[in-house]
């Protein structure tokens, strides 16, 4: 139940039996009586001819003894008393203009109706005697502004004051010269304090440091509890007849009234969320279940405790997470466990700290959680098989048949029978296929654009036949060079240079002709297959952004092709009899093809036509891969993709492939299988994936003299115009391996140093250090 008032409320106060409430603000000063279902206005104190600041209130209080007496603290420093029994319209009785600045709090003595205490921004507290209508005595805290003063309800002479510097002082009315006790309660201004209604020695204070602190003040003040709230606390009020409950409202941000159990200081026991602006006053109605609150949003609410929101009930009592190994991390509220046990017959019941019985609204025990890690040792949830497969699968380096065999064995040993069977089927489908003499259609598919590119690069005037001849010669040249390097797949630099020189030479027909003449064995490799390897490799080196970059996967395939040189191909003829007749025959064949089709595709035409197996299973394999992916076993899909490479004629959608690769790579990195992840990237035929490990690795080098980055070259500093790493022996920059002595840090070319230190003991620079070369 609530009522709306025309202006923001600064303070509220109820009378002795909590049947009426006074609501005060800068532009409002009214008394309401609290009926069963509504607030009914009793009188308006803000009446009269000149409404000066005395009619505005920063604080208001109702006399706890005399039901007709009210006191208000005005912002101009006046303390005003009001007599509701006055017959006139204006109820104003006394005005004390004793304070020089705003009065923050007024407080009646709990039993002595005529004693009124005020605390002001000017740093003084004054005790007014309403009978004498004058100041009885003045207390000076000798620290900063007084934010709150409260008479102790248990002790006739005692009162407490809270200060803007965070101090709390305890005073005795009989000793106005000096406080009894003083202690620093808060690290910022203390805004409010409240004596515990039952426990004589407890006092609560709160302030801008967002904490509510409970002090025990019998001897040396001792901090009992701290409640950390989310905003500066404006007011605190103990909940009646609940020893550990205290209500609070905030100065800013938080519009709720929170009731805390100080033994569980982290979550409000109850929250009241009705207000739309900050709450400025809380008054309990002598009843632990009902209280009133006034707010800046111009409303006064009467809250029933049963309507409260219980943040702790909403709080999540369980935390759970699964890690990559399938281990479960679990944090459980102990309460849930207890509850679970009590269900199963144990006598453990949640205990209630009130004897009122199992009233749910009063249950608020300390809560704690226990954490458990469930380590997965089970095949159904663990992922050891994944790691095993990832590490033991072979993806390259052998024939498809062997790879499938191996992987089937791996999967089988890990009880992944379905996967193992899949590998075996794949072996049947593709392994057998490669065993038959099959020109590498995979190669030609990829290679043909490269050939086309080469065509363009060459002189357009050269007719196609000659061109092809030139190619063949080139092929031959290269093949002779690369033969020796076949095992060293990484060594492509020589291939590059060969290529370049060849490209140059092929520009003129005479060169081609001479090339033909120079080679005694004019055999050549049909279909330009070797060339197709070389081109993409070199291109990839030069510019990985070319959209037809051949993945490095092509390199292992080269071996297969070499193996198949004995197939009934031009090659066989070539080895047998390197006759010119053969050459013309085959070049014309190639020429014929070129006529039929565009140069881009002519070369793949032949192998395709002759080698297609009668049964088209590619799309089935595709479906199979998709099935595994849908089942979450992306490992199998990717491994198969890699091994089959381009043997699959209806390839899986590009995007899908990328998705699988990425997912598999992420999994691998999760398991910290970096090496395998890199291998997968390397073997991937997908452009975006293959370029992954060519990205984001930059080594920045700085000049060893001026420490500025070397931008142009690794051995010359543009800034200090000096060579950065010269050899101590030949004084030339070292561009390869730089070997240096750990002792004197001089060094240079490895070869030079080795030579030098064979014969000398001392450092070549003459620094005198006896260098060690091991």
């Amino acid at each position: 139940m609530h009522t709306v008032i025309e202006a923001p409320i600064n303070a509220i106060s109820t009378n002795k039996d909590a049947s009426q409430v006074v609501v005060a603000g800068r532009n409002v000063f009214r008394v309401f009586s609290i009926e069963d279902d509504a607030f009914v206005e009793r009188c308006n104190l803000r009446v009269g001819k000149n409404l000066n600041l005395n009619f505005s209130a920063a604080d208001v209080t109702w006399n706890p003894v005399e039901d007709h007496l009210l006191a208000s603290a005005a912002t101009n420093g006046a303390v005003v008393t009001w007599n509701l029994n006055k017959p006139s319209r204006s109820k104003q009785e006394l005005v004390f203009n004793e304070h020089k600045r705003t009065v923050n709090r007024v407080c009646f003595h709990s039993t002595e109706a005529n004693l009124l205490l005020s605390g002001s921004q000017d740093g003084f507290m004054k005790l007014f005697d309403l009978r004498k209508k004058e100041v009885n005595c003045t207390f000076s805290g000798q620290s900063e502004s007084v934010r709150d003063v409260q008479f102790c309800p248990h002790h006739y002479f005692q009162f407490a004051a809270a200060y803007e510097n965070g101090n709390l002082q305890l005073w005795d009315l009989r000793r106005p010269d000096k406080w009894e006790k003083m202690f620093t309660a808060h690290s910022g201004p203390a805004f409010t304090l409240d004596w515990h209604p039952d426990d004589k020695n407890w006092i609560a204070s709160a302030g801008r440091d967002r904490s509510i602190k409970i002090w025990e003040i019998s001897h040396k003040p001792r901090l009992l509890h701290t409640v950390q709230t989310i905003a500066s606390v404006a007011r605190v009020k103990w909940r009646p007849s609940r020893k550990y409950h205290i209500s609070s409202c905030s100065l800013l941000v938080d519009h709720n009234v929170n009731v805390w159990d100080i033994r569980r200081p982290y979550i409000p026991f109850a929250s009241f969320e009705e207000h739309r602006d900050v709450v400025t006053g809380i008054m309990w109605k002598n009843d632990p279940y009902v209280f009133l609150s006034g707010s800046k949003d111009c409303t006064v609410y009467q809250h029933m405790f049963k309507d409260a929101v219980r943040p702790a009930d909403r709080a999540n009592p369980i935390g759970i997470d699964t890690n990559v190994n399938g281990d479960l991390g679990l944090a459980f509220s102990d309460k849930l466990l207890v509850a679970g046990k009590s269900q199963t017959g144990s006598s453990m019941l949640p205990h209630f700290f009130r004897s009122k019985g199992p009233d749910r609204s009063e249950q608020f025990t300390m809560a704690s959680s226990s954490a458990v890690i469930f380590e997965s040792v089970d095949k159904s949830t663990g992922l050891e098989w994944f790691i095993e497969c990832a590490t033991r699968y072979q993806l390259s380096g052998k024939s498809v048949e062997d790879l499938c065999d191996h992987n089937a064995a791996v999967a089988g040993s890990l009880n992944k029978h379905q996967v193992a069977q899949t590998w075996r089927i794949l072996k049947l489908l593709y392994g057998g296929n490669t065993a038959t003499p099959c020109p590498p259609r995979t190669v030609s598919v990829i290679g043909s654009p490269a050939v086309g590119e080469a065509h363009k690069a060459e002189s357009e005037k050269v007719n196609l036949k000659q061109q092809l001849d030139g190619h063949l010669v080139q092929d031959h040249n290269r093949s002779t060079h690369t033969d020796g390097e076949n095992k060293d797949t990484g060594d492509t630099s020589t291939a590059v240079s060969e290529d370049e020189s060849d490209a140059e030479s092929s520009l003129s027909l005479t060169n081609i002709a001479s090339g033909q003449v120079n080679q005694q064995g004019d055999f050549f490799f049909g279909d330009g297959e070797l060339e197709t390897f070389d081109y993409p490799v070199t291109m990839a080196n030069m510019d990985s952004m070319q959209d037809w970059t051949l993945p490095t996967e092509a390199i292992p395939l080269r071996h297969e092709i070499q193996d198949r040189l004995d197939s009934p191909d031009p090659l066989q003829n070539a080895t047998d009899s390197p006759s010119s007749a053969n050459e013309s025959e085959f070049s014309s064949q190639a020429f014929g093809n070129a006529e039929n089709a565009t140069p881009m595709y002519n070369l793949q035409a032949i192998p395709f036509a002759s080698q297609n197996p009668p049964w088209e299973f590619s799309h089935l394999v595709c479906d199979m891969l998709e099935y595994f992916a849908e089942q979450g076993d992306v490992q199998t899909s990717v491994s198969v993709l890699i091994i089959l490479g381009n043997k699959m004629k209806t390839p899986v959608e590009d995007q899908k492939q990328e998705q699988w690769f990425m997912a598999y790579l992420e999994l691998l990195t999760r398991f910290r299988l970096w090496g395998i992840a890199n291998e997968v990237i390397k073997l991937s035929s997908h452009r975006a994936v293959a370029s992954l490990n060519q990205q984001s690795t930059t080594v920045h080098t700085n000049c060893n003299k001026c420490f500025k980055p070397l931008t142009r070259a690794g051995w010359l500093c543009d800034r200090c115009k000096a060579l950065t790493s010269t050899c101590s022996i030949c004084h030339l920059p070292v561009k390869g391996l730089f070997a240096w002595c750990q002792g004197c840090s001089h060094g240079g070319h490895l070869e030079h140093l080795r030579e030098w230190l064979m014969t000398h003991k001392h450092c070549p620079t003459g620094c005198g250090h006896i260098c060690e070369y091991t």
Partner: protein
Amino acid sequence: MFVARSIPADHKDLIHDVAFDFHGRRMATCSSDQNVKVWDLGEDGHWTCTANWKTHSGSVWKVTWAHPEFGQVIATCSFDRTAAVWEELVGESTEHGQKNWVKRTSLVDSRTSVTDVQFAPKHLGLQLATCSADGIVRIYEAPDVMNLSQWSLQHEISCKLSCSCISWNPSRVHQPMIAVGSDDANPSGGGKVQIYEYNDNSRKWSKVETITVVTESVKDIQFAPNLGRSYHLLGIASKDVRIISLKPLRRDQSSTQTSGHSKFDLRQVAQFDEHNAQVWRLSWNVTGTVLASSGDDGCVRLWKANYLDNWKCISVLKGDGSNVKLQESSQVQQQQQTLSGGAMNGTSSPPGQAPLPLNIKRNSGWAYFNTKKDQGKHYY
């Protein structure tokens, strides 16, 4: 099965969240006592607390790790209406092996309790989604991944309902997508799970679906790791556990231009009410094949699909660390019987295919399930 290892968490109040990092070797716990603890897995297999610090001035609801590519970074969100991003200072540690974590930023836009915080999947860069009790989802982005102290509020989405949980769709292929769950208690308030999608053209997040079958308050929501699936699996913790699959419908070229946002084929793949109580949390394993759920009954239940895509309970764990034998074994058998029978009758889905669509009617883009009719038909 599982070996339970108790951890002396020693939080002073409830622990609300547990989160493993990307590699599963670090764990963070957060609690109402306003502290976060970070635990590291030692070589000996023991978890030791390497950091413990006060993060907020209210209960810390969730903690989540960023992808390690961005550094050792966690985000927390709290009752105190803020979310915070923390980074570990690498190389610095005190004499007891304790690591230092520093607050990089505090996100203070919310006016109510921030109930969840989640980092976006890595391919979207360094983005963070938060949701708050007043029903606003906020997307933040750190434009410079090297500077974790600068986050700009990119989007604010109003969900109308008080939000309790949020989950990013991890798919690389699909547009950025988040699912938001609401703990609004009123069952008549409609669906409690909303799906939002980022539209590249309008550069806005817009709602694409509301899962209307879930009307009870939702406590947790988790997308399964995608791993190249063509559909998305969404686990929902409410009064029961549900798994919903969202299969993006191929859109025609024409409709792409006009409507812009994707449509989905929604199926409820599974529904489990074995907890018989409020289910609080869910967690998928890395491959998205096992779902762990935990509820007020004090048990953790693990669910897995068999080859027919029927989800079954494979394990029950007690929160105190004990394994519980499957008491419902008879029930399971029964389920299997009906299952096999179903397979013979051909009503169950054939192996290797997504389950049959439920009875979903589609009116102007919104799907609803005929729950009554579908209950017990496809789940077992």
